């Protein structure tokens, strides 16, 4: 397996160098592209570390949402006055090196082989309602973490709406027009919807689940947003907020139901565990997709280039 170890060595060496390149380049545009590269090399590292779930989320959220989110920063980033205090690069360097040295010393001192919680997870797998251990941990053993995490997403949605309200930006959106991105969205968006459904269904017995599916659906939505086929998320519309909150409210309903009968919070009945998890995941996909789409409010799209009506031919 020397080639395998060589790949590991190459990836392990490149990651910190790429990270340093992302952080050190003064030009934001170069930093964004390097950040995308870092995301992809990280996906390969997750693949080598036998963590397909994380590779899937890294690919879905990294290339799908984070890239577009950072691109939306380019137009206004330069005009932002820097933080007041002058940057203390040397002090930060000394501090970072000290922190890394201590943490490295601790990691080296960790015992070589630890079984971790694998036996416990696999032991209780058949009553968890799903076959894939990571989904069992996410939506049954530690589902309280996932519930709070969905609330964190809703908190981000409220914050973005509070900071970048729609008010009049919605009127300044360019009207839909035939464009290259329109063609692209025609071809890719149906695929994205299919893959999202596939990922949710697959989550029960193989890597997949609500987050990956939500991110893929959101990426399809982003394509439609830029192709002017889809209007930006109208957070003011109650129906939209209802769709956004359906996921968390259903999750809370399932969580509270056992309390009424004297059971414990989020205690899924064994017979219904699989069905309940699938139902929660399916509704959560909508919530996650809506929140990820809210990262591109009307203001961001109003400043984007209107689709060119005609193809400019060079002189």
């Amino acid at each position, binding site marked *: 397996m020397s080639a395998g170890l060589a790949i590991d060595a190459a990836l392990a060496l490149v990651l910190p160098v790429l990270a340093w390149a992302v952080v050190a380049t003064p030009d934001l545009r170069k930093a964004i592209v390097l950040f995308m590269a870092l995301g992809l090399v990280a996906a390969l590292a997750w693949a080598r570390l036998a963590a397909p779930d994380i590779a899937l989320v890294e690919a879905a959220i990294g290339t799908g949402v984070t890239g577009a989110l950072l691109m939306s920063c380019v137009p206004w980033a330069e005009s932002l006055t820097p*933080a*007041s205090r002058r940057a203390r690069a040397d002090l930060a360097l000394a501090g970072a090196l000290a*922190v890394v040295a*201590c*943490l490295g*010393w*601790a*990691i080296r*001192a*960790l*015992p070589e082989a*630890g*079984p*971790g*919680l694998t036996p*416990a*997870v696999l032991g*209780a797998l058949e009553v968890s309602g799903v076959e894939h251990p990571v989904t069992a941990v996410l939506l*049954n*053993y*530690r*589902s*309280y*973490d996932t519930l*709070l*995490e969905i*609330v*964190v997403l*809703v*908190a*981000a*949605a*409220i*914050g973005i*709406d*509070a*900071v970048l309200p729609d008010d009049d930006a919605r009127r300044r959106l360019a009207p839909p027009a035939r464009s290259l991105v329109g063609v692209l969205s025609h071809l890719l968006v149906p695929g994205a919807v299919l893959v999202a459904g596939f990922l949710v269904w697959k989550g029960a017995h193989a890597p997949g689940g609500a987050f990956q599916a939500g991110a893929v659906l959101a990426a399809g939505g982003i394509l439609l947003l830029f192709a002017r086929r889809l209007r930006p998320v109208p957070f*003011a519309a*109650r129906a939209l*907020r*209802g769709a*956004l*909150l359906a996921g*968390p*409210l259903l999750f*809370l309903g399932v*969580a*509270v139901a056992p*309390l009424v009968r*004297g*059971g*414990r*919070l*989020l*205690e*899924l009945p064994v017979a219904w565990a699989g069905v309940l998890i699938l139902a929660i995941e399916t509704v959560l996909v909508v919530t996650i997709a809506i929140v990820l789409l809210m990262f591109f409010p009307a203001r961001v799209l109003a400043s984007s280039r209107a689709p060119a009506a005609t193809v400019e031919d060079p002189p």
Partner: protein
Amino acid sequence: MTEPAWVAGVVVIPLVGALIAVLAGRRAAPIAVVTAVGAAVAAAALVRQIARDGVVEHAVGGWAAPLGIALRADGLSALFVAAVAVVGTAAIVYALAHPGTPHRFHAAWLLGWAGLAALAVSADAFNLYVALELLTLAGATLVALASEAAALRAALRYILLALAGSLAYLFGVVLLYAAHATLELSALGAAVTPGPVTAVAIAAMVAGLALKSALFPLHGWLPPAYAGAPAASAVVLAGLLGKASFLVLVRLWFEVVPPSLRPDAGLLLGVLGAAGALWGAVLALRQTRLRRLLAYSSVGQLGYLFLVFPLGTGPALAGAVYLVLAHAAAKAALFMAAGSIERACGSDELGALRGLAPRMPLTFLTIGLAGLTLMGLPPSGGFVAKWLLLGASLETGQWWWAIVLVVGGFLAAAYVFRVLRLAFLPAAGAAAIARAPRGAELPALALALVSLGLGLAAAPPLALLGAGP
């Protein structure tokens, strides 16, 4: 019928309320009031249950500790949840009465409320990380509701430093999990053995939480955030959200940190706390704006809380927790008063306070009563807390902390009286001021009286903390 699981109810009720408040959009106010009442009832029931049964455990999802997440409510969490309920309800009433509050305040604050409740009752290290992140986002949104550049910059600095703190805390959790394959706090406490992994993990977690709770010298982000935020946001930020990281640190310190590590690390935290207490008070004296004065006062009061680490458990812990409760009520009342003053005369410059007392009697009565807790004068709750801390420092022979407490008390008296003196001077010109709405002044007075009541009726809460006289 068995007692309903109040330890879960305390978290679920604000969560449901927050989500429905988001759904309600502009008409979130009535939802917020109903949720506040429901959560207050749940908090009262939890306090009663803890007083009767002692510690209450709740394995979420029915899974035992290493696999599932354990909720645990003891005296500390019950009292903090009760404080969140009292100050939170008053904040919502104040927000309704204070016309300048944006309508999104209610949803953001209810999410923060749920985060605080989740944090108070959780006994799982990673779950605490997610609760802290929820508080970071809710707090940043509360600051960013004001659309001035200064508030937005403060919100950005708040998010970034909170994220850095959370990552440091998470690194400690990762190391502890890698070494002991469990995330449950008491199990970690039992399994932890002094060694490089434990030392570095604890150092990372303590540093992260110290940054998040604005311990000196990492307090730079706090004053602009509290001064820039809208009035109602500043109330809940200063009163409650600022204390969350300290509570996690206390739980970590007394449940996970091995006793052999506590003396020297405790000394470091004590020294930084003492420096913060004095530095905060000195800077508060030199501020020209009321809200920044109160923000630096918060940095100072937090310094006293950190004295619990060198002083150890028993009365010192009860004193620190009591100071958290008393300070929550008092500082929230002071920020409400500051908001009313700002509303009345357009700016919170101390100069504008001249001769204001006769025209805003209730507000300055509130400032006086709440000031008692800051100064630690009897009969306020602050006095009881500082008395316990003083007793502990003398008992354990570390008399120098007592000096810090006394000097700090004098400095606090200095900046409180500075405000009151200005208000009672004869007014230079009869500046026309808009009457602060009565509804905004009553919750402030109520909270000031609560901080006073904590001093008078100290026995039951202290019994709950297991340090009753």
